[in-house]
């Protein structure tokens, strides 16, 4: 392929009509407190795993709810289930159970 001195960027369009939203539906059904999330990012800020990896709870759950689940298995594998995110969540989301439900859905347990 020829080079023209610039790159074509990957399209970040989220195709809600084409993406698989069944996993998000499963998680929300079994942990409905996730509906209360206001995307404040306290979970990511307090996460010891995010200090040593690219994992962030807020980003992960946001992408999951949009059906962008390509890297989800790798992401949730970083979680230590320490529960600090539950302690800091101002909306009372049971974040640890969210991770657990994702792992169940992905047969990671």
């Amino acid at each position, binding site marked *: *392929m*020829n*080079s*023209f*001195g*610039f*790159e*074509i*960027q990957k*399209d970040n*369009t989220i195709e809600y009509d084409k993406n698989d939203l069944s996993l998000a539906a499963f998680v929300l059904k079994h942990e409905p407190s996730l509906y209360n999330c206001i995307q404040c990012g306290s979970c990511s800020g307090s996460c010891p795993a995010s200090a040593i990896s690219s994992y962030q709870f807020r980003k992960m759950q946001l992408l999951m709810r949009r059906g962008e689940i390509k890297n989800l298995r790798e992401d949730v594998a970083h979680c230590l289930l320490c529960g600090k995110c539950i302690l800091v969540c101002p909306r009372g989301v049971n974040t640890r159970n969210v991770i657990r439900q994702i792992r169940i859905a992905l047969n990671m347990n």
Partner: protein
Amino acid sequence: MISEGKKTLWNDYQKEIADDNYFYARSCIRQNFFPGAEKTFLKILKEELKKDVYDDPRHTTCTGIAYHSDVVSLETTMTVVARQFALMTERGYRNFVPSCITSFGIYTEIMELWEHHPEIEDKIRHLLFKATGREFKVPANLAHSSDIIYKYRNEIAGMSKFKLINKNTGAPLRVVEHIGCHYARMFPHKGIGGAEYPCVLSGLAETFGAEVIDYPERRACCGFGFRQYVIQANRGYSISCSKRKFESMAPYKPDLIITNCPGCPYFLDSWQYVISEMEGKTYGQKGQGIPVLTFEELSGLMMGYNPWDIGLQMHQIPVEPLLDKIGVEYQQDDKYCDAQGRTFGKPVIPEMIKIC
């Protein structure tokens, strides 16, 4: 296209377009990209519709691209625009018709600014007089050249030799349109049909018998974006934007893209070639590209003008598949010949995109 609902919207966004006596302002870049487009517009207006159009050789760029790239100040742009108006005034015209959508946006923006801030207009009048000794009147009517063609679309269709109908199947050709961003985005009431669903091109295409497709990214920018293209390293933003449009329209298998801006047809045309060379992907049928025409070229083609006389050989994506569908006769040997029959050189055949 489902026009139910849009018709109500279109009724709310109609504009006054002068009937005759136009002062024409050419685009600074279009004559390099598709040099036959403006000539075709003038020919249709002067020879077919018998209108009075003055094409002044003294006028200059409106500085729109430089203004939007932050190279010149608004004050400079306003003074240059004032000079264009002065040329119009000197020739006794009051109806200003720019060929370029960026220019149309610039003129609209400045006239609106002067209406609300007469002190700025006074200052520009002073600067222009000081620099050139010229005075001017603000145009009584400002309309883009696509507005004029839209206004007379039924007359043009009545004189047309062809329709946008597949001569082999009898089915309407599938057309996607792209409106230049500065046509109605800044001032929706200055565009025919408003900003969301302008009907200036879709109305023209439907008059010629086409089926217009309202594809999801219809309202996205073509990718030109001025500074996104001017710097080479930034051109990835431009081509990525165009690619998103191609990906969006390709599933509908369009036969043609029509545009009303100088930059849009150039980028929608050329980026198809570049994407094919960079990624090996094409968006038309059988490995070909999707032909891109300006509204003047389309009108000229429908009226039976020789495709090589209106500059269709200057397009990166060959138009022959479209000509074959419409039933336009053409001489392939004349494609790269000038009016005197002299060959001006053939382009290199692309590696990826099929040319016929």
